[in-house]
């Protein structure tokens, strides 16, 4: 029973670690950025799992009467905020990647030695 309740959280933790693994073993800057986006997905799953209710409906009362049992709308609103934040951060990062490619000619992190101490 405990294991069943942990399924979505285990999935969230797994995806978080997959994203981290991707960043750490990345050989291409675009791969790093996409791994970052994957990590963000884990927070969505965590949020939505926290707000879920079995046998409940979506929190939209256009066709049902108010007072019906719904899932938590707050986490959905939080998640919408996060999606926008993720999209914008990825856009900014990809712009940096494009420019790095333009200036340095390579996208492999190992070949980018300018910042080395």
């Amino acid at each position: 029973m405990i294991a069943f309740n942990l399924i979505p959280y285990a999935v969230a933790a797994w995806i978080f670690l997959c994203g981290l693994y991707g960043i750490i073993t990345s050989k291409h800057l675009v791969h790093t950025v996409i791994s970052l986006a994957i990590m963000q997905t884990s927070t969505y799953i965590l949020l939505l799992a926290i707000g879920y209710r079995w046998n409940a409906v979506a929190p939209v009362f256009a066709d049902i009467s108010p007072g019906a049992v719904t899932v938590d709308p707050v986490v959905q609103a939080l998640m919408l905020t996060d999606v926008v934040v993720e999209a914008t951060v990825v856009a900014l990062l990809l712009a940096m990647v494009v420019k790095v490619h333009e200036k340095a000619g390579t996208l492999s992190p190992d070949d980018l030695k300018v910042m080395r101490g």
Partner: protein
Amino acid sequence: MSAKCRLIVFCLSAIPFAIVYLAAAKNLPPWGHYRGPYGDVISSLSVYERHTTDVVNAIDYDYRGFDTLGEEYILFASVLGVMLLLRDPNPKSGTADEGQGLSKTVKFGSAACFGLLLIFGFYICTHGQLTPGGGFQGGVIIATAFMLIYIAENLKSFKAITSHPLMEALEALGAGLYAVTGVSALLVGAPFLTNWLPLGTAGDVFSSGTIAVISASVGLEVAAGFILLSYTYLEDIISGGGKVS
């Protein structure tokens, strides 16, 4: 650090991380039995207090509208940032690609879809307070409609339609309108971002007061913002950059 060293440290930290994560999750309420009062209170109140049937939208633009203001400005800052990073001090002209050789069917289909997507985007934007949707979702759909022009035609046609300074002005207008709506509440004597417009009837398009106005301004900003983003990327990759200095 060598790649192998990184991997070892990662594995050594990943296992405790997973254990700690799950140990914490064990103490959460059981999956599917959301307890917390916040969501339920808002679900039960928002139809009556704000005459809106889409509770998530009400949270986004009213109850927690201040968060959404911040989020909209994150998008705004990010678009400015991309324009900043990909700016070209010596703009060139005339190296745009001349058509992509797609068939007439694709071009015709895309033109038809453009109108459809645009209408759909406006529909989603303006009906956010009734059904799932709202400014962000609708804005992205509108922006995608404009992308179709680039895919079907070429960069020149895309540029002709999304004339650059106007897009920027529209994007800033959308962002500024949200802040202005908030300030307008101050001018009526209520705290920032209070919903002070007439609330209408739940289920009507013109309902929920400032929620509809904010939704529209967000839609404008998101649409213009994503169009600007695509334009800036395409301009840099195709006409300007792509070279190694």
